[in-house]
């Protein structure tokens, strides 16, 4: 059994900027545990010298030449945004000084 604690779920929710209530924390802890346990089963099945697969199709070196292609116009770029100003996307204040 994996150890997906309520605190770990809250931590993940915080990283993902998702609001969760206590009931949901319990529910997600159960669900995530199930996923992690399933992974453990897979892991046990491929023990030994099996390299991790990041890409199922053996392809590499797919490149694009360094040639400029048309971009969106500023109006197009901003058209889907909730708020904009000064030709820029307008977002909530970010106060951590970065």
């Amino acid at each position, binding site marked *: 059994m994996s150890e997906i604690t309520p605190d770990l779920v809250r931590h993940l929710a915080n*990283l993902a900027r998702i609001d969760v209530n206590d009931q949901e924390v319990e529910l997600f802890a159960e669900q995530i545990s199930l996923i992690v346990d399933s992974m453990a089963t897979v892991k046990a099945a491929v023990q030994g010298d099996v390299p991790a697969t990041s890409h199922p199709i053996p392809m590499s070196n797919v490149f694009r030449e*360094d040639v400029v292609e048309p*971009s969106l116009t500023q109006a197009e770029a901003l058209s889907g945004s909730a708020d904009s100003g000064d030709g820029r996307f307008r*977002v909530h204040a970010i106060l951590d000084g970065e």
Partner: protein
Amino acid sequence: MAKDELMNYEKALEQFEVVIGLEVHVELNTNTKMFCGCRNEFGDEPNTNVCPICIGLPGSLPAVNKRAIESSISIGLALGCQIAPTGRFSRKNYFYPDLAKNFQTSQYDEPIAFEGSLEVEVPSGNTFTVAIERAHMEEDAGKLTHVGGSTGRIQGAEYSLVDYNRAGVPLVEIVTKPVYGAGAEAPELAAAYVRSIREIVKALGVSDAKMERGNVRCDANVSLRPHGQEKLGTRTETKNVNSLRSIERAVRYEIQRQAALLAKGTAIIQETRHWHEDKGATSSGRPKSDADDYRYFPEPDLVPVQPSKEWIEELRAKLPEQPAARRKRVQAEWGFADLEFRDVVNADLLDQIEETVSAGAKPQDARKWWTGELARIANSQDQNVTELPISGAQVAELAALIEAGKINDRLAREVLTYVLAGEGSPAEVVTARGLEVVSDDGALIAAIDAALAGQPDVLDAIREGRMQAAGAVIGAVMKAMKGSADAGRVRELLIEKANS
């Protein structure tokens, strides 16, 4: 901003060993971004170089810029790194509006280059070997402008504006291993290391390498430990150090700040700090904490990069001279004494002098103008001499005008101010402003006669070999001609007159 207590620098070094680590981000000067065909251009109208890929619209698919890969491999090779036979991109997940995708495409456990080293010379002439841990590819983030908030008012509009033109611009991040043993020279070593990286990427032609534009950015890690202690101390990472001088000052500041805390028995907090050039101090940013839980995973939309041996060797063959070798070569070519040359290197003027010399100036003339008058002007304007709006070719032209006797040093200094003000090349300024020296002997003799009228004894004195007496007359002539006379010629004419 609370004022930090600082320990005297020498005292700090007596008590502690300094360990530094440097992360340098180099923005590549490709035509297009890392994963899309949008222009990679500084200073364009906001959000005009953006597309569904770099603003992270659903369904868009990135494609790797081949030239960015070549540039990254070249940087790795120039740093003596091994090139990974397989490199993969990863997603670095974080929520911050500087990237609209909610992750940065980066490299995690398979960087394109690793295990290199760089010889770095500090101003004293000492050389250190800086071990490079890795160089990996990633994309730059957009630019945020914060509006409001700084006034301290809680109410009112506080928001940020985002320009994604820079989002997706290719970056190479070069990370050193911990650097030990630099002692008191750790701040100079940090700056000299970044200078070397800049020289390398400029010579490779892979970056514009302008620090003032953020093409080269440095984060400096500093930690202290008591002499003899094996375990590394807690480090801080200072961001926002955007000039060589800032790097040196920021590292020195952190050494003094941390030493004062440790001496009092206060633990160092592992955190990000921000450098404030105006205050000459760092301030606490956010603590390294949960926010650094980036949950990296392989980028499924991009296939691995597997550079062939032939490709790597082709790029290796095109590598330019190493900075250290280049310095040795040009110093010998120019015949500069060690101290003269050190001044040139420390002022970051190698390129300028090389350009000036190749435009025909004598090396010593090139050195004199760049490290003398131009450095003085830049300093008085609180600027770097390398940022002055004057080219090596123009300085060479100035030197040629002096050589030809068209202007003297004093006039040349005047000409420089007009060149810097954008009035044209030195020759154009001289013509437009009528600044040529008076080489018409008739005009000079008339001025000499006028000056002698006030001090008739001078000719006798010169005849008796007391040349210092000539000074007053030469001075008076120069004054009468408003400085536009050739002092050497005035002197010759005066001696002729005394002996005739």
